[in-house]
């Protein structure tokens, strides 16, 4: 179930794989905060979709498991 749910997360994963191929060592004296803030703005949409799909999927499975019982 979880695998199907994370399809949106998977899209973000593919994007991440292809868009950021080279990693440069971070300079120790520069605050890495900026990258984390920009990164959240980038993956935010996928995170929102991921959660929506998950909640939706959970409702479906709960509905059917209730029906069955």
């Amino acid at each position, binding site marked *: 179930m*979880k695998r199907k749910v*994370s399809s949106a*997360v*998977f899209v*973000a*994963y593919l994007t*991440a*794989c292809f868009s*950021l191929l*080279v*990693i*440069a*060592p*971070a*300079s*120790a004296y*520069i*605050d*890495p*905060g*900026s*990258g*984390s*803030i*920009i*990164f*959240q*703005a*980038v*993956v*935010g*949409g*996928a*995170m*929102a*979709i*991921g*959660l*929506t799909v*998950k909640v939706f999927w959970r409702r479906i499975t709960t509905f059917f498991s209730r029906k069955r019982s």
Partner: protein
Amino acid sequence: MHGRRLPASFRDPSGFVFEEDGVLKRQVNSSYRPSYDLLASSGLLAALTEARLLVDHREAAPDEAEARGAYKILVPERIPFVSYPYEWSFGALKDAALATLRVQSTALDHGMSLRDASAYNVQFVHGLPVLIDTLSFEAYEDGAPWIAYSQFCRHFLAPLALMSMRDIRLGAMSRLFIDGIPLDLAAGLLPGRTRLRPALQIHLHAHAKSQSRHASRGVARNDVKGRFSLKAFRGLIDSLEGAIRSLEWDPAGTWVDYYAEAEHYSEEAFVAKQRLVRTHLEATRPRVVWDLGANTGLFSRLAQETGAFTVSFDIDPGAVEANYQRMRSEGDTSVLPLVLDLTNPSPGIGWANRERATIAERGPADLCLALALVHHLAIGGNVPLPQVAEEFARLGNMLVIEFVPKGDPKVDVLLSSREDIFDDYTREGFERAFGESFEIVAADDVPETKRTMYLMRARSQGSTLEASEQRDEQRENERGSDEP
């Protein structure tokens, strides 16, 4: 100003922790007033306290705050033993991570958000991870990303992934990097297969690249404001939780034989050893026990049964993990299992080496247990017995120690691979060495073995000093008499 400010409490302008007449207090500065009021009025404080996710506290009388020019003075519940992420087992760090995410999730429900996600803000109280920094919350701003996202990944996700998917011993890296493991370093060390896990690919690998790429951009939260919905925020927390939950480490796979409790004792010897330890514990009634070399914590439970809070140290991450899982499943909340190498114990780290305390600074314990341990230090670690004694006297006021002599199978194994240079490693040598730092209260043979169980009382600091001064004087005289 009265009270001693704690050396770890200096970064946050919202307030600080200080000790006054043996009581730990937290000052809330006026600048933090709006957030503190929101914490209470939003119901978040009550929700977190009830869920045992936030340390309990009471507010001191208003005139006390006024006298200090503070908004409030809080008196938090005392933490029985302050421990650090590099001392926690895998399961303990994982539970601390999940607790932090639950706190953040509850905060979002109440219109607030965590501005710190430091593992040092979590402590174990009654066996459960709780947030101790009451001043970590700020009002949630619509559309703003999580300011503590990077810190959460560095303090929790990166070390857990490294421990689970590369090597459990990498937990010690947290000791080297006090603000968490840099994500580019973690990404480089993790095996390639971690890229196939979407959550790890996103939160560690891609996140690390984004950090390196934008390192010098100077982007503020406001610049991306509106581009990170509350739904996205909740999705991020949910995804992080999934990532943390998916990381596992089972000590049974690799370490199970190593930490097996069976010490080649006969049943009779084992029962007798337990009885001796219990007798000493009941006679001395310590409140705080440090079980040094506790293995999976069998004897720590004896101490706990006599009413002591017991910190259960071992060098082996597998044994500590087994101990921790047992603590969680049995709910024996007065045992705290921690990883510690006695030959290289937790040092003082951070600013001025004082932010995180050494092991000795967090003592002394009322009583130390050192069972089946001394041969590992004296023969395995080449530490002379007088120095072992001196260190034990520093760590605890009383000592229950088992002497394991040559001829014991465990010692013979240690000696089989090295030259026996340990002439003083005899019962007499042991008593002579420990007699300098301790007064020997009782000595009993452990039946069916060649071992001896001792109860000792540390000589007071003054008399220890005197003894060492006398020794120095004696040496001086001896040296003098050698001269022609």
